[in-house]
């Protein structure tokens, strides 16, 4: 790099007809030194396997913001946001492609969620279906469907699933109870070793057994 010798060579130019403005000398010296210093400080030893740097100029992480999210976030959030609103956003982004923004589904392909007994029924069964997916024939609102719904347990966290279930159960004329995050968490823990998508019979037994235990 030829940055070191620039200021001296520039000095010689001053003697020729025009005088270099003072601000330029200061500016160029500062910037050239800065550029050289920056490269030396963050050269990573010219190694091919060094990618990250820390320090003021390399960009600092935001400890305040991050810790606020970690510590104070969960405590403040539920008060601040409406679960129906969150659930609507999650539904719009993830579910509306098949079940449609109106919740009516597509006849013959995707069952409706509006007016569905599955949606208005046991929240634990509904949570298990959303977490693990559903495959095979199912009867919804008087019609047969035979499709495959993907699992959402790797995509959505418990809070989001709870929000979307609450949204489903309280929209389009559905009148189910709200679903809490803890309920989803317990279903997730209970069904953790069930890898494949559910069959209707399996989910039904889950609901019955759970109901018995509860009683």
């Amino acid at each position, binding site marked *: 790099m*030829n*940055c070191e010798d*620039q200021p001296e*060579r*520039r000095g*010689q*130019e001053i003697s*020729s*007809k*025009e005088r*270099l*403005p003072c601000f*330029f000398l200061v*500016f*160029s010296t500062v*910037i*050239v030194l*800065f*550029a*050289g210093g*920056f*490269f030396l400080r*963050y*050269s*990573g*030893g*010219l*190694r*091919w*396997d*060094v*990618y*990250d*740097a820390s320090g*003021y*100029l*390399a*960009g*600092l992480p*935001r400890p305040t*913001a991050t810790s606020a*999210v970690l510590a104070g976030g969960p405590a403040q959030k539920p008060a601040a946001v409406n679960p129906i609103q969150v659930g609507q*956003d999650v539904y719009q982004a993830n579910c509306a492609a098949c079940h449609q923004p109106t919740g009516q589904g597509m006849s013959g392909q995707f069952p409706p969620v509006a007016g569905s007994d599955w949606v208005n029924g046991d929240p634990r069964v509904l949570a298990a279906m959303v977490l693990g997916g559903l495959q095979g024939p199912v009867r919804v609102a008087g019609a047969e469907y035979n499709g495959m719904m993907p699992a959402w347990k790797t995509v959505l966290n418990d809070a989001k699933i709870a929000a979307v279930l609450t949204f489903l159960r309280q929209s389009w004329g559905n009148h189910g109870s709200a679903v809490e995050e803890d309920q989803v968490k317990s279903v997730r823990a209970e069904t953790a070793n069930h890898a494949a998508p559910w069959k209707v019979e399996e989910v039904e037994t889950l609901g019955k057994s759970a109901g018995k235990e509860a009683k």
Partner: protein
Amino acid sequence: MAETLESKETPVKVSSGEVDPSLRAPFLWLLGPAAVWLSVATILALLGSLKLVDPRFLGTWGWLTFGRISPAAFLSFVYGFGIPVGLSAALWAVTKGGRLPLLGRRWCLASSFLWNVGLWGGITGVLAGESRSLSWLGLPTFSLPSLGLGYLLSAGWLVAALVSRWEEASLALRFLLLGLVWIPWAGGAAALMLHDPAVRGVAMGSLEWWFNDGLLYAGLGAFALGIVYLLAPSSLGRPLAFSGLGRLAFWTWALFANLAGTAHLVGGPFPLWMVSLGVSSRFLLWVAAVAVGVGFWVAARRLPAEKREWDPSWHFLRFGMSSFLVAAGLGALLVLPAWSRYVHYTVLEEAQLVLFLYGFLGMTFFSLLYALLPQLLGRPWPSPTLSKVHFWLSSYGISFLVGLLAVGGLFQGVGLDEPDLPVHDVIVLLLPFLRSAAAPATALLAGHAVFGLHLLWLILESGSSRRGDEETALAHADIEGVRTP
């Protein structure tokens, strides 16, 4: 050279015999299609801007999807308008303002033909979905042989003439030589590497950015700086100050323009030293830019009184130099990793690009056209009002476009940095800025349309008053006719 150019000071009195008639055809063949490409680029850019106002605009036709017209607009501006005007600047310099003959001038016609055929094919290919999405290397493969051959056919003779008619201490010639040589060297190396199936992995990314920044700074930027040094003696009445400093700036420019590209890759999959090298290079380029700028302003301080009135060439040149300094400063400051987390991948970086492309390159090129065309055609510009309108539309258009994108980019950057704010909401926040940007884009298009009409008027006037060169003028008028609605 100085005395040749100084005769330009009073373009009104220029006699038609000044430009060697054998050179009129090469100039017109370079500049005529360039004017057409300028309007193509502006129309495409405006369509892209309107697509952001409403994505459903013009329906869902694949040829006009945003991801294709936006690169096509930039590519046609750079390759259709920028490079031919840069070549004309070199032609102007090596023929001493059109007085000396050029040995290979007959090849210029073939060159222009091949270049424009290649480019029409290439831009059509981009719109048809043949691009590989490599920014400035994004022209489809089939257009490259024609483009390369077309470029070499004219640049080869220009480089030979430039070396044989070298003038000690002429910074204009140095910068023009840099532009002439860098583009085929780097373009050829990059194109060959990209078509080698053994070349895979992130090296393609750093290659892409080496070429992108190199083309903007060492290719077109060098052409534009060459134009600044070329026009200064006639516009300012004296050459730029501090020629020794200018030489130093030239070498800094030539080296670090080649290393600055990795500054775009902060946070990307590249070793730390590559990114830091890019960031430091951007700062050194800024110093070189300010060195040129200091020479320019010191010389401009003693501007002759009559220049302070309306002189299109000087006004465009001054706007270009201001944009150049701001764009170089932004180019250095924005890439600093400390706040790159807020500004990287936002439209603020787009603002810097627009300022460099349209503000510096575009306006400087117009300055050359305003100085060159009257001498070439032997007539002054017919209407000072039209050139004024062009200047004010362009300068306000560019300023507002850059301002809107810069402020919008800050909102976007701060929003994207907030992990709990969904991306969709961030973009909704940015949309008012993107949508209002359609207004300055329209002003820019209107400015270019005014220039096109003015140019057509000039050509028709000179064509009707001249017998000998009627043929070339008519051929040119035909090309122009394609563009005017």
